[in-house]
């Protein structure tokens, strides 16, 4: 089916989406072109490339790129493709290239800002073939923008400017203010997992507070509480509702949705549980060195969000402190990276326990993701049925109300998914 024959707007209704959005390879191709080929896609955080010559290899949609820092300290997003015969120049996940990138095939070298540096045995090119350093350098991804070091890039030369809603910027700000030095860094390796399923299953799941008591039932003890997920907490979150409740405890933390498909969920139930212990006290003392006491209490007691999704491919989690990046590979195969975030100035031991708990929650072998990816796979299998045609996203419609620049609803509502598909449809019909 050609792109012109896909009526993307007809696949999305106010309370449901057509199964084809998860199943149809032609729709996936159109997503690659119109979402990952146009949107501001998350690439990386500048703390991953602290020194001149540092690079990280990553992808925007299916296109391999270099996220790198040049000899003057400037950050670039370059295409990982030699302008000569097309070989990928870098083959490592990350590293330091020194002063030049060098293509292994014919030895062309490039400055760390992408400009062509030298072509071996140049006499093979006539004097009228100028080998302009920019035209024949490593091509720049057309547009790059940052907020607090979080770097986004667009493969399109023109389109809407980078403009995160203020509420989404506040999510990033609230993560940074938890660092005693008011700075964060991506540090501590990366959890990598993959699943047989569509990329949207993961990005929707990050804001799905309806599923935990069921998908993650096996993580709860007899008292309905999950295992402890953060050092210093006396007990894990109560994730399972008592049968007598007419309303889920997960509703109490609201869902929030903003333009562009972005959104976040309020904190997990029980997040307010008092933390304590030696390491927590050290952390608190570190915060008190850079904040007035009342502010420290606010920071520790008010978690703004649990997961925040920066559509289409990134999510931050405040409690476990990570950035998760989703990569679409094919319509039914997706890859996910989870990078720990370190609060600078916080005690070393706190980072160690954060890493330890992140193994339990987000490793490929974790107690949480294993059941989520099982559900993503089940969706992929179940939706092979041609009927029913529609996937329901109606939950919480009645509780929707205006919040700031966007909307809010009860925590277990499917506002976030409806909002993601609103943005999806705009991209897919070429309006964004």
């Amino acid at each position, binding site marked *: 089916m050609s792109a012109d024959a896909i009526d993307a707007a007809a696949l999305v209704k106010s309370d449901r989406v057509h199964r084809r959005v998860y199943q149809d390879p032609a729709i996936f191709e159109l997503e690659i072109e119109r979402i990952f080929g146009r949107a501001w896609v998350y690439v990386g955080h500048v703390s991953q490339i602290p020194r001149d010559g540092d690079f990280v290899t990553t992808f925007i949609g299916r296109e391999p790129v270099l996220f790198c820092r040049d000899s003057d300290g400037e950050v670039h997003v370059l295409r990982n493709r030699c302008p000569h015969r097309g070989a990928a120049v870098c083959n490592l*996940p990350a590293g330091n290239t020194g002063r030049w990138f060098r293509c292994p095939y014919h030895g062309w070298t490039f400055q760390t800002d992408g400009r062509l540096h030298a072509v071996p045995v140049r006499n093979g090119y006539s004097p009228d073939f100028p080998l302009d350093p920019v035209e024949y350098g490593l091509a720049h991804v057309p547009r790059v923008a940052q907020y607090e070091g979080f770097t986004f890039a667009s493969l399109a030369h023109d389109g809407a400017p980078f403009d995160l809603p203020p509420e989404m910027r506040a999510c990033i700000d609230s993560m940074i203010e938890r660092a005693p030095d008011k700075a964060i860094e991506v*540090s*501590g*390796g*990366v*959890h*990598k*997992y*993959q*699943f*047989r399923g569509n990329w949207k299953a993961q990005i929707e799941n990050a804001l799905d507070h309806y599923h935990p008591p069921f*998908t993650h*039932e*096996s*993580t709860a*003890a007899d008292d309905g509480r999950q*295992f402890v997920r953060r050092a210093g907490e006396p007990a894990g979150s109560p994730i399972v509702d008592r049968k007598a409740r007419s309303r889920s405890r997960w509703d109490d933390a609201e869902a929030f949705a903003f333009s562009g498909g972005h959104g976040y969920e309020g904190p997990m139930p029980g997040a307010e549980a008092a933390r304590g212990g030696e390491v927590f006290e050290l952390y608190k003392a570190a915060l008190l060195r850079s904040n007035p006491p009342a502010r420290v209490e606010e920071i520790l007691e008010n978690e703004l969000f649990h997961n925040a999704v920066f559509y289409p491919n990134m999510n931050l989690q405040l409690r476990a402190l990570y950035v998760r990046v989703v990569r679409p590979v094919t319509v039914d195969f997706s*890859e996910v990276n989870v990078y*720990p975030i370190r609060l600078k100035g916080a005690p*070393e031991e706190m*980072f*160690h326990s954060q*890493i*330890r708990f*992140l*193994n*339990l929650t987000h*490793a*490929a*072998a974790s*107690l949480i*993701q*294993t*059941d989520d*990816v*099982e*559900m993503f796979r089940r969706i992929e*299998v179940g939706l092979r049925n041609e009927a029913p045609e529609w996937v329901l996203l109606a939950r919480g419609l009645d509780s929707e109300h205006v919040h700031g620049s966007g909307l809010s609803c009860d925590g277990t509502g499917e506002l976030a998914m409806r909002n993601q598909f609103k943005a999806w449809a705009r991209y897919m019909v070429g309006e964004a």
Partner: protein
Amino acid sequence: MASSALNPAPLSAFDHLGPIEAFILHEAHLLDERRFTEWSELFTEDGYYWAPARAGQTSPLDEVSLFYDNRTAMATRLRRLGHPSIHSQIPPPTSVRLVSNLVIETHDHEMPACTVRSKFMMFEYRAGVPDGEQRIFGGTYRHRLVVVGSDYRIAWKQAVLANADGRFGALFTYF
């Protein structure tokens, strides 16, 4: 305790592989049979299991791992493995571990303790709709064994996959 039947040789025999090999094969067999509680009891109280997320990773503290479980985390993981609603284990996978190339890397007769290196291959199959999935993992084990009473106990076990830094679907059980 299961290992007592193995009747470890006198301490001076840490350079004799026989009883050590029998213990390590027994340990792998318990995992194959999903006898997880018995398996976890092979570890000392402060013992741990570690599967790094890249070869050459020197510490589980400041870098993420595929697994890094002390006995508390093990108990949490094993309680979940026994839960009737653990969806990623319905149905549970079956697995076979082959362990070979055993070498005693270091031994300390004073402690007494030894570190044993071995190579492993693990075949795993999980049925599912519409198709099951089978996978092969391989890598290097290191067991730090101590003698407690008349039994060997595991002070730590490290499993470094040949593709430790690879990308995986859900990993269900210890290698």
